[in-house]
């Protein structure tokens, strides 16, 4: 039996805070083990789309379904469960300023009630993978923008979350670091996990198992 899609948006309509219609009959399906890169100009609704997926905003009409569960307001417990399966980078996602780098990275596992030993092992792996061993005990305030971004990537994949939502992955990264991050994203895309990557411009390099979309006039094309 086929796995249900991770993300399903059916005829979604959403207005922005000023009352203007941003999405009109938006349809989008992200099958399991596939990723999507969504491009759009500033103000096209990329961040709004990310907010829909993490239950920060709700559709005025249509259906938003993640992990085969429909997100609706007042379904707080369901939204919490869905969010625990999402790793986020950029946009609404940031670091908790009063927690150290290690604590920020392990936070999804602490919330999920993961065992201490597993937490330690995965933390060590993430710190090594993103070259953050030296910064492990530091607070986010003392990190550079690049380091801050890397910590977010580490946190977004430390618990093997099945879905990553990445808002502008290249923001704040120098070309060398971006290349490392891109390699990481490629590894994720072939690992069986899924990503929704929101970017302003279509990236030059293509990733495997990935579909490319563009937001245009409130719809995905």
């Amino acid at each position, binding site marked *: 039996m086929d796995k249900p899609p991770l993300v399903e948006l059916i005829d979604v309509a959403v207005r922005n805070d000023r009352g203007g219609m941003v999405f009109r009959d938006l349809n989008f399906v992200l099958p399991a083990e596939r990723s999507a890169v969504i491009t759009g100009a500033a103000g096209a609704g990329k961040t709004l789309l990310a907010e829909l997926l993490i239950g*920060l905003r709700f559709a005025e009409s249509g259906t938003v379904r993640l992990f085969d569960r429909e997100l609706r307001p007042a379904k707080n417990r369901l939204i919490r*469960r869905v969010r*625990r399966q999402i790793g986020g980078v950029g946009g*609404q*996602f940031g670091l*908790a*300023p009063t927690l150290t780098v290690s604590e920020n990275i392990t936070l999804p596992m*602490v*919330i999920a009630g993961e065992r201490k030993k597993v937490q330690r092992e995965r933390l060590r792996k993430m710190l090594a993978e993103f070259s953050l061993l030296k910064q492990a005990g530091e607070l986010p305030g003392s990190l550079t923008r690049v380091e801050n971004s890397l910590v977010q990537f580490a946190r977004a994949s430390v618990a093997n979350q099945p879905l990553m939502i990445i808002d502008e992955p290249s923001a704040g990264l120098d070309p060398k670091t971006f290349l490392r991050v891109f390699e990481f994203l490629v590894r994720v895309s072939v690992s069986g996990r899924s990503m929704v990557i929101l970017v302003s411009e279509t990236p030059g390099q293509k990733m495997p198992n990935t579909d490319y979309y563009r937001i245009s006039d409130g719809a995905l094309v």
Partner: protein
Amino acid sequence: MTRIARVLTELARNLRRYPGTALGSLLSLLLLFLLFDLFWIASVTSDRFYRDLLSEIRMEVFLDEGVADSSITGLSRSIMSLEEVSAADYVSKESARDELARLVGIDLLVGYDSANPLPRSFVLTIEPMYLNTQDMATLETELARLTGSGEIQYSRHWLEKAETTRSLILRIGLALGALIILTTLISSANNIRLMARTKAVGFRQMLLLGAGRLFIAFPFVLEGFLLAGLSAAAGWALIFYGRGKVVFTQFELVFPAGDEVVIYCLIIALLGSLSGYLGVRKLLK
């Protein structure tokens, strides 16, 4: 880090980062609870004082002259059948005369041996639970209905005044208690809100990662519990320490029972928890 470890780490971090706020909260609550504890002791002591005085209240039922001595036993039985009465002591004319002589120092009825004008009576001891104006008035009515009973006397006005005073002390206690509850809630909640505000960004991130409200709020709930509970316990510790140092010779201070103090401290600690939650509640939306 386990969830429990995270809660304890956050709690320790809050106290370490804001020792002034925590200490200020602890001391202001301590002062507040100390005042309440002293009022509690005063209230319990005065209540004991009144109870001791009340237990000495007697009701005296004088008998009509026409009542035959042979009817006394029956009358005594009727009086004792009333549930308010725990004892009924018969005072004969001779006993009344002796008592009068004892009180004034000389026998005023010398020469009136055959015509002693003093009435016979029953002196009633009342069950403690009926020592109040309402029950005493009911008892008085019941006694008045008995054949042979005449005038009935007891310290009605003193009893009314004692009741008014006790009720006033109780009302002051309730008002003070309500005020302290409100102050504890507001003061603790505000202190915790101040500490939590700097963590608002972190709370938002935790919510985005799927953390529950209780998971985020629990360190603050625990902090409220600890600060309020410690303040309440420290207040009593100071009082019990002072108890051994000060001795009153005119009267004895009455302290609440140990289990009452423990329950009181627990209730205060729970109020502190509530204020901890109220302190961070708005930041969890």
